[in-house]
């Protein structure tokens, strides 16, 4: 029992996962970051991307997350993201359309504000697609 830590994953509309985990890999601002049991206390920003975690009994899960942050204190990790989706919940066609829309928008001349928003939208769409593709293989 010493090599696991408590993990709670919160999306804005539900508690996605609560239980023990062995490993959590998440997309941080400067690349992927892995959290293992007894990690030093840390609060880190999370960018849109995929998270992978291994639960206590060795089951691997992969999910798509949007902006948020993770808090690891006293061997308990809490991940807060606006959306957290399992691959089977993702509507591939919708994500595909969103990606095309975002790419199209990025080609237009626009303000920095719009540029950032579209870039974020593109990142979310790409993550969703990537996560579903991994599931299929």
């Amino acid at each position, binding site marked *: 029992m010493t090599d696991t830590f408590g993990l709670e994953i*919160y999306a*804005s509309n*539900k508690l996605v996962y609560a239980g023990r985990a062995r490993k959590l890999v998440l997309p*941080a601002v400067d690349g992927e970051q892995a959290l293992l049991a007894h990690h*030093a206390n840390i*609060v880190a920003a999370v*960018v849109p991307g995929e998270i992978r975690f291994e639960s206590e009994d060795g089951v691997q899960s992969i999910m798509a997350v949007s902006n948020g942050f993770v808090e690891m204190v006293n061997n308990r990790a809490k991940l*807060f993201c606006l959306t957290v989706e399992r691959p089977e919940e993702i509507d591939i066609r919708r994500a595909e359309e969103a990606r095309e829309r975002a790419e199209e928008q990025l080609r237009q001349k626009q303000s920095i504000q719009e540029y950032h928003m579209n870039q974020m939208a593109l990142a979310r769409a790409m993550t969703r697609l990537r996560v579903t593709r991994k599931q299929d293989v």
Partner: protein
Amino acid sequence: MANAKEIQTRMKSIQDTMKITNAMYMISSSKMKKAKKVLEDTEPYFYNMQAAISRILRHVPDIEHPFFSVRHLVPVNERKIGCIVVTGDKGMAGAYNHNVQKLTEEFMEGPGHYKLYVLGMVGRQYFGKKKVDMDGSFRYTVQKPTMHRARLISDEIVRAFLDRELDEIHIIFTQMQNAAALETVNMQLLPLKKASFQPSSLPVDIPLEEIELSPSADVVLDTMIPNYLTGVIYGCLVEAYASENNARMMAMQSSTDSAKAMLKDLSIQYNRARQAAITQEITEVISGAKAQKRK
């Protein structure tokens, strides 16, 4: 006394109106139930997030961040205050919209420049006719609040705040205290008050661990706080939507009740009128017959 035919027509029209109010009652009650369910779903995220932010502030008490800056340098009379006003898309909800409008107008009497971001058709039309600074491009519906809409709204106001277009941001919406009582509230969104995160009485011997903020405190707060605001705005929208439907439900309930009372009165009147007509007819027949006899 009105004649029986007229009373009957009136009763018919009241019955028809009652059907409509009754239907609206049922629709809003089901909408309210749905909204309450959604609100409950968001609660764990929201409370835990608040706890996390308060934990960070507790460990890093002397944090300096634009979202917490009160901007003391801006004089009170020149402060630009943005205000999100959540009204309904339609009326027929008792005093719901009126209360929000009243509170907004009271709030706008204070010093400073006010800019309104109005949600909902009723408020937009009301403030559109007045001489107030209203953001015309801010067009969102209040029906079925979604996270996406909350994110658009919070992106917009956070940008305005950071660009110093606004120095303070408030939201005026209606909160449901219980099934019967609604309260219109004015909440400050930005700048955040540190005090509101801190529990009033911290035990003295609470262990303070060291927490690393990765990559830096600024970056963490930069993502956390807009997220937190999105959550708050979403919560407010859902709460307002539930309140609106609750207000409409109560309004429709009371109008159905008064329609029933009117129907009761009218049916008594109708019966009287009918009885009077019968009595009169009988009198006429009898007196006619008597006159015939005397001949």
